């Protein structure tokens, strides 16, 4: 148990408890409001008198909410798959294969991290509409899964993280594999990927959270509701006049749930990679 006679530790504990309370309070309040009646919620009670679990059912069955949630899941899963398919080979090549201009290309890509998203948003929109050059698979990618996902298939930051990890794999392994006649592809698939599972899981989680939170881009390219992700639908819910806050909070909570679930399962890896990244920079 906490040793309270250890006087010096009281202040650190106190600071931590206050901060933790502040960190978690908005989420707790979200839970508590989501269980209130509409009247209680608009009067901003602290706690509901009676737990209204019906709210969740009502949200879940209303206004295409299920469809939006599945949209979000599909979009995020497609982005994670796509980003892994492009990033793993690229990071492997940048870390282990020696080819001309390798470092120049790599640092050139790194510079693109400096570009603010808001600047790219507008040209992206024109590319997706097919205004700048003809697109494969159809004249325009507006209102489609392609438009929502493909722009996010390349992620320099994730390539960077993966490359750091791949670099640590000893070269002797590759030499031995080559003796046995393995190609780079086979070596990547049979040796490198199984060895790097922790980092791959972490970057998948990063990519999933980023995709799940994406908001400005879907808002821009979706003019019909068919592919609305939850973020956009909740945004339009907030903007409606006379919103029922209890339902809004229930909806928010349902849509945070997948992210929270993934986070709980991978939090140790997640913490590690954040702290490593902070130091290495």
């Amino acid at each position, binding site marked *: 148990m906490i040793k309270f006679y250890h006087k010096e530790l009281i202040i650190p504990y106190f600071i931590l408890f206050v901060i933790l309370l502040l960190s978690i309070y908005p989420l707790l309040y979200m839970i508590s409001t989501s269980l209130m009646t509409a009247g209680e919620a608009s009067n901003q009670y602290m706690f509901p008198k009676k737990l209204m679990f019906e709210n969740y059912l009502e949200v879940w069955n209303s206004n295409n909410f299920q469809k939006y949630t599945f949209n979000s899941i599909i979009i995020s899963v497609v982005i994670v798959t796509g980003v892994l398919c492009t990033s793993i080979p690229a990071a492997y090549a940048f870390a282990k294969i020696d080819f001309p201009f390798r470092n120049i290309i790599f640092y050139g890509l790194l510079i693109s991290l400096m570009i603010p998203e808001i600047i790219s948003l507008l040209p992206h929109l024109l590319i997706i509409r097919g205004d700048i050059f003809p697109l494969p698979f159809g004249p325009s990618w507006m209102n489609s899964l392609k438009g929502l996902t493909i722009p996010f298939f390349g992620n320099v930051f994730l390539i960077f993280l993966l490359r750091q990890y791949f670099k640590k794999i000893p070269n002797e392994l590759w030499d031995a594999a080559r003796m046995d006649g393995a190609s780079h592809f086979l070596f990547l698939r049979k040796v490198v990927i199984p060895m790097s599972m922790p980092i791959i899981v972490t970057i998948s989680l990063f990519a999933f959270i980023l995709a799940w939170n994406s*908001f400005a881009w879907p808002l821009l390219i979706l003019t019909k509701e068919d592919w609305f992700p939850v973020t956009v639908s909740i945004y339009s819910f*907030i903007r409606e006049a006379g919103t029922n806050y209890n339902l809004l909070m229930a909806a928010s909570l349902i849509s945070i749930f997948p992210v929270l679930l993934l986070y709980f399962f991978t939090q140790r890896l997640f913490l590690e990679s954040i702290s490593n990244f*902070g130091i290495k920079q």
Partner: protein
Amino acid sequence: MKNFFTKYSNQINGYIFILPAFLIIGIFGIFPVFFGMYMSVHKWKVFKGRFLGFENYQKILGDISSFWLFILGLLILIFSYWFWSEYKNKFKNKFYVFLLSLVFLIISLILINYSWSIMMSTGDEDFLNSLIYIFYYSFFAITTEVGLGLLIAYALYQKLKGKQLFQMILLLPYITPAVMGGAVFFLIFGKAENSILNEFIGLFGYDPQMWLFDKRKLSEILFGIKIDGFFAGPSLALTTSIFYGVWSYTGYYAIILLAGLSIIPSDLYEAAKAEGASRWQTFTKITVPLLMPIIFFLLLTGFINSFQAFNHILVMKTSSAGETMDVVTIEIFDHFWDRVKFGYAAAEGVVLFIILNVLAVSQYVIFRKRLNYD
């Protein structure tokens, strides 16, 4: 032919492996900047119009040369820091070095002030104000985040029970999507007299506030003085969005700083303990100075990153807060989304890009020397 493939297998494999990522990053990451520049010199509403030259920039900045003067001012500001850090230990008489860098500092401030006031009087006031608002946002958010983060990291470093659990909870706000988080903040910082926060400050005898719906400046609310311009501070609505930023990122910085703490040699702490230093003394005399490079680095990168804050501000924006929450990203978004002025918005984007690059230069200048703990 087979010989060719085996001979160049590295090259071929290398390029094939990076090709998919390279194509997508090239098209969606790098190409847009150049295309944005191309758009910015055209009249462009939904479809491309005639060539305008720098007309868009003239509308935004008023006088383009004063913008470059402004950038020059920023660069001299960075230079004065560089000059001080480079030469303070190389000359015996520090005073002259100090004096000279002070002169540079004053020149840069005069330049910035002068060019800014010209731009303000001739350019797009809304856009320039939005730069000031994002400056407030970034400055206040990042200093609070890193400061609080440091405190938390230090507390967590004290070999407490349940450290893992604390860390896990600390990162919860960071992974909460901005739209949903913004929705709760909308409630907690509600304008109703009985909103959670208003009741809470009521306990201390303060009047209820309108929070996100209040466009009065902080200086007016706190000190009751009405001033205009830069020193008026952010509006209460913008301050509320700063609270959101702090809520969401403090844990993230705390985790990074905690990792930084663990590389400080522990014999330093033991020595301090043997000398009978208190925890607070070791914190201010050992921890903070040794962590200074990391703290500085986080402040600067965080400052640049928060210049791009967008999602939660868009969610929390209310009409009664007026333009005081229109930070630069919102302003740009508004121009091409609601007002369909594509060329103009692209030009605004390029201006933002230039400013961010100047900040990045400062980051490079300050962190040329690697971190070391000798």
